[in-house]
């Protein structure tokens, strides 16, 4: 049972994102802003930081692929960016000590990097024609605020859970 806990948690977050955009009003922080939930990715970064790099990257790749197939229908964008940014974040964590505040900052940084990365890719394949300054004003700010709130609320339980999981894994 405990083995399935982690995949179930991520699956829950995976569907939660979709429900979030469907039911929460679009103009959460003002009329023209676009807020994007990245709850799944925040949790994946926490997993990488508190359990291990290898696990984190494997989960990131699997859920990136799932995200691409189910929601985007363009395979490759999240499949590449989730593990790549997880890897970069793990490099940063090598020189930092792991505590909640650092984890908060690093995962926020990772989410910002993800948004910019997706923007650049979508710009390249003509999915968007937004220019960069507009993108920052319309999307990046509100998205960062929303995800910061999520990490503050859900980060601590996630950290506790992953630490416990890491301990049981080491014991086995």
């Amino acid at each position, binding site marked *: 049972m405990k083995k399935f806990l982690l995949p179930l948690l991520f699956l829950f977050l995976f569907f939660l994102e979709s429900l979030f955009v*469907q039911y929460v009003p*679009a103009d959460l922080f003002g009329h023209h802003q676009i807020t994007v939930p990245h709850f799944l990715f925040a949790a994946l970064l926490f997993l990488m930081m508190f359990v291990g790099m290898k696990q984190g990257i494997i989960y990131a790749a699997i859920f990136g692929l799932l995200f691409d*197939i189910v929601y985007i229908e363009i395979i*490759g964008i999240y499949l590449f960016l989730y593990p790549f940014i997880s890897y970069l974040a793990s490099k940063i964590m090598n020189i930092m000590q792991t505590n909640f505040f650092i984890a908060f900052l690093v995962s926020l940084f990772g989410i910002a990097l993800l948004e910019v990365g997706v923007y650049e890719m979508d710009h390249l*394949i003509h999915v968007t024609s*937004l220019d960069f300054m*507009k993108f920052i004003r*319309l999307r990046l700010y509100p998205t960062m605020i929303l995800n910061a709130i999520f990490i503050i609320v859900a980060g601590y339980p996630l950290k506790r859970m992953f630490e416990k999981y890491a301990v049981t894994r080491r014991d086995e």
Partner: protein
Amino acid sequence: MPQFFLNKRLIILLVSIIVLVALIGFSLREREKLSWPEQFIKDTSGWVQSLVSKPTNYVAGFFENLQDLTNTYEENKELKSRIENLASLEAQVQELKKDNEELRDVLGEEKTLRDFEPLPATVIGRNPDRWHEMIIIDKGKLNGIKKNMAVVTANGLIGKVKSVTQFSSTVQLLSSMDPKNRISAVVQGETDIYGLVEGYDDEKKLLMVKAIPSGAKIEKGQKVVTSGLGDIFPQGLMIGKVVEVKQDQYGLNQTALVKPGADFYDIKTVMVTKRSMAQADEKDLTDGKEEGS
């Protein structure tokens, strides 16, 4: 630092970038249908989503009902004033319909571009990254949905079916940018003016209707509907109202900014329209340009 770019990490990075480009290229090309692993995953997730979305729909509905209750008095007032006009309008419509039917009988033409069979569906998911605006609905191939069918709500057109799996399908909204996604539209007025719905202004939340001839006179508040010429959509589906008209970059065409009739965010149930009239052959399609009068 140089160590970072040496050894096998660099190779892994390069290989994954090549794979990435290949995968994106593979999924971007015009596909008739999704490959079977994709269909399988989408069906499975669609099943989970339809399980989850029912209880959440109830909860969300409950809160909405509470909100509605507070507005009841004012709404009632407004609706009462509207209902007076409605009776006369209804009689008029009835008469026109009868007239139309009779004339059609005389002509011997039964089906028109306007006819379609509506197929109700529930929204079970939405793409969380808001670049590709897509929703997932709970009806699929088994219910008779096909690619490219028009999807409407009570207030107007919202998009078209992008891909179909057995039990669910994905709808691409009008608000998503896709250079391949063009819809032939008519600005209703004394003379019909044709244009193409092409693109969406993210900041102003308005649709852009392009390729309108520069001489055409368009006024604010005129209604825009689908023309039915694109061979995909039925005729006469409401798209929105004109808000602003501006000249194109080179002054050859005009672009009208249109406020969509349907809300692209608060969507719960939709209707997929199955056009009754037979579609034209492939070779006719290539000649038939969606040009204005």
